[in-house]
């Protein structure tokens, strides 16, 4: 800053209605010209009292509400809720249901990542990526329709299993869709990764060191892009994940600077390929399980008193639900640990020193979803 001039830094309020904020939240940034010196995220515009509302619902009625936590990760959110209740009841999910849940989760992960890729396209000013990614996503939403009747609010997992067995031809449809996707995604990758302007926008901004990641509690692709090798699916496997072979993409393990926005981008793209592989393996395993084998266990309405915790790997990070039950048919308390809520707290750390034009690129890599952040 030049000492001779009486210049001042200005606070710019980005949001709550701003093109870069995917949802209702505010990022107040302090800008010195184009360079950002300080930032302050503000959330809470979408607070619906979700956790309090759950205390007035019976356990079964919370599943469709858990879908509404995040519009593009509904499957994993209702899954983690079912999982915490199953832990409270101490029951095993039937094997077939475990694989069906894995398939549903991975379909959800792919479509969520495609939604994120689409949002990256708009944030960087290229609508083509947006529409191509949404075109691919549509096939996975159609799979959701075939599986459980709706595109986004799937309401598929149940306490003790899944809502229904997979319909006829679902395996054929799903494998066709996955194989098509594995070819078609390269079209988008060629538009993004081969483009020096696209990569140039993402590289070298929003650095996070592995130590910062641990301190902030960041999880998910943002964490793996910064060199922390941790994935709930592999390190604390739930459902059928221990039987599947997959790689967890981890980047910048030896980089003292940590990971930038581009590495988070690459982790997410690779995760989509790994999800395709997991779906394929799950179907192969499903073939060995007889068709009429159970998919759902009858559970009691009342949960024995106690506190229980469950975590799964959400598309955005590690989602945890903490349940306090008092022996009635309604939960006493249900706490949601949303990965985005934690990740967005690091936004101040990430945007310091970058330009205003980098904010959308960095924030796109968090993959904001305000439904689960504010709950």
């Amino acid at each position, binding site marked *: 800053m030049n000492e001779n001039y009486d210049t001042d830094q200005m606070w710019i309020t980005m949001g709550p209605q701003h093109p870069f904020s995917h949802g209702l939240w505010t990022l107040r940034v302090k800008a010195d010209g184009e360079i950002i010196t300080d930032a302050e995220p503000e959330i809470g515009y979408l607070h619906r009292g979700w956790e309090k509302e759950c205390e007035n619902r019976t356990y079964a009625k919370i599943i469709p509400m858990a879908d509404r936590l995040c519009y593009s990760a509904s499957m994993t959110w209702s899954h983690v809720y079912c999982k915490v209740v199953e832990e409270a009841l101490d029951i095993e999910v039937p094997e077939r249901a475990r694989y069906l849940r894995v398939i549903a989760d991975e379909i959800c992960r792919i479509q969520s990542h495609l939604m994120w890729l689409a949002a990256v396209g708009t944030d960087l000013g290229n609508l083509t990526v947006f529409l191509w990614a949404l075109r691919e996503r549509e096939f996975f939403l159609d799979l959701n329709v075939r599986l459980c009747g709706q595109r986004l*609010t799937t309401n598929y997992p149940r306490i003790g299993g899944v809502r229904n067995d997979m319909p006829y031809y679902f395996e054929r449809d799903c494998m066709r869709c996955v194989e098509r996707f594995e070819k078609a995604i390269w079209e988008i990758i060629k538009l993004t990764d081969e483009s020096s302007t696209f990569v140039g926008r993402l590289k070298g901004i929003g650095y996070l060191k592995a130590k910062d990641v641990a301190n902030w509690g960041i999880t998910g692709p943002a964490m793996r892009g910064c060199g922390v090798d941790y994935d709930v699916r592999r390190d604390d496997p739930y459902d059928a994940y221990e039987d599947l072979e997959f790689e967890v993409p981890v980047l910048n393990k030896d980089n003292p600077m940590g990971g930038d926005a581009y590495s988070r981008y690459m982790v997410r793209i690779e995760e989509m*390929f790994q999800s395709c592989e997991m779906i394929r393996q799950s179907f192969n395993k499903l073939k060995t399980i007889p068709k009429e084998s159970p998919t759902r266990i009858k559970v009691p309405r009342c949960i024995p008193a106690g506190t229980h915790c469950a975590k799964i790997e959400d598309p955005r990070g590690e989602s945890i639900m903490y349940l306090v039950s008092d022996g009635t048919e309604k939960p006493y308390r249900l706490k949601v640990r949303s990965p985005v809520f934690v990740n967005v707290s690091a936004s101040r750390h990430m945007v310091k020193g970058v330009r205003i034009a980098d904010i959308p690129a960095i924030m796109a890599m968090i993959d904001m979803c305000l439904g689960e952040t504010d709950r």
Partner: protein
Amino acid sequence: MPYKFLNKYPKKFRGTGIIVPFGMAVKRMIKSTIHRPVTIMYPYEKEWVPDNYRGRPGLRFEKCLGCGICVRACPTTCIELVDVTDDKGNTVKRPQVNIGRCMMCGYCAEYCPVDAMTTTTDYELAEFNRKDLIYDPHRLAFEGTNEMMEVHISEHLLSNLAKGITDKPVAFFETDRPVLDDTKCISCQKCAKVCPTSAITMVVVGTNAKGREIKHPIIESSKCVSCENCVINCPKAALKIKEVL
């Protein structure tokens, strides 16, 4: 399972950093000009939806028992039992759905013991005022309801699985039955009156000190749908559902 994307990217040297995306754009432009674009012109043409699509709830009027399970299963409490006249002129209880609150979770169809409630493929539900959003039981009927729109519960009992029986799916309305606590019953017959399937008959089991008859409900298991109307209406909480697990 090796990496598929990370093996190729990031590229150290991106010599064609401008040309490849341009070429991809041109390629897609030519492709979508020759074959039509993937989008559909929505109000004029609609996407095909499978029969198991969870649109608004539908009701098969003649099948419905009026038991009220859907009312209690609904997470948003958008269903209400109302009195309507059926074809024969009798007044019966049937569910009425406030579509403005409905979140299309399909629980009403799932929990319906007789599959009278179904999901439908109807999803264009906008109306010009809120009054029109309330679907009375006759309006809930959906033409072309087929068995794919029914949602069945096929749960397995843990006790069965422990015994190795895996081919006996049940639903809660087949197994759970109300049981009577004899000491609490005051012979008021309310349970028999509210039972939608008339599964409850009052049987004289003796006389009390004043010489009045003591009547206890006997529940016919084949007729009962586990709707809990008797449990809820019992003034002394003598009945409660016994869950089979």
